């Protein structure tokens, strides 16, 4: 299990590096998807199978497909790679890389000082998550639904304002809102059965 964890973690980091450095948008998206899948495996080994499934369903399955959809809608292809190459000089990486390295150093220093390696992790079941989600975090759930509603209306408005024949844009975007709203409902779906 531990070996799987480390392999998945390394894959995730490598895929993310590749995501940030790719020129072709679709290739970058593919690497990002691989990274998300690797994170899902990490979640599984951390004893959160429910989150792993949600990561795959929502992140990799819905959000990333939406990205790919937009890339296809704009038909970004070979010519964008050239533009991207002209925009992206290796020198631009230096400053952010130094800053990020400092951050990583700090975090790893703090982690190293606190020392203790994680004990064998306990699995947190969806049941517990649901109980706590609809117990102390009920307000948060309501707020999240408001956020999604706001995003839906906002995306629709931004997408279709003063645009003839572009309504597909708006309706596409509000589908994400709906999709994730559906997933919220889905998350709660196991509550009545599990709680009783």
């Amino acid at each position: 299990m531990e070996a799987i964890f480390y392999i998945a973690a390394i894959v995730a980091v490598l895929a993310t590096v590749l995501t940030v450095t790719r020129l072709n948008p679709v290739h970058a998206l593919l690497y990002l998807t691989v990274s998300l899948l690797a994170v899902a495996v990490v979640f599984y080994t951390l004893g959160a199978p429910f989150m792993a499934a949600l990561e795959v369903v929502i992140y990799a399955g819905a959000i990333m497909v939406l990205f790919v959809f937009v890339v296809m809608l704009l038909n970004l292809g070979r010519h964008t790679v050239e533009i991207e190459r002209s925009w992206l000089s290796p020198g631009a990486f230096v400053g952010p890389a130094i800053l990020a390295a400092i951050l990583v150093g700090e975090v790893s220093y703090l982690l190293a000082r606190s020392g203790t390696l994680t004990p064998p992790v306990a699995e947190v079941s969806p049941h517990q998550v649901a109980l706590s989600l609809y117990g102390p975090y009920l307000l948060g759930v309501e707020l999240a639904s408001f956020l999604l509603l706001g995003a839906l209306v906002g995306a629709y408005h931004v997408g279709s304002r003063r645009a003839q024949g572009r309504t597909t844009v708006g309706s596409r975007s509000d589908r994400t809102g709906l999709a994730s709203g559906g997933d919220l409902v889905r998350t709660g779906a196991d509550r009545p059965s599990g709680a009783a």
Partner: protein
Amino acid sequence: MFALGLIGLLVRRNLLFILMAIEVMLNASGLAFVSAGARWGQADGQVMFLFILTVAAAEVAVGLALLLRLYHRFHSLDVDAASEMRG
């Protein structure tokens, strides 16, 4: 991972890549929450991850809609093109 997302955010000029970098950062914080939750055996971490998922979904919806507007107006995904306030 968060740091990588940050690099991506700072380096790129293409809005699409910026959005992707934001996704990476959100995901990294979600990973931190879940692993912390696993460390202490609490469900709170996973609840937080759920909220992050919703935030990510909402952010992508609005972000991609904005991106399409940008592209239709400037025929480019360069965020610097939109630096003037008069459109």
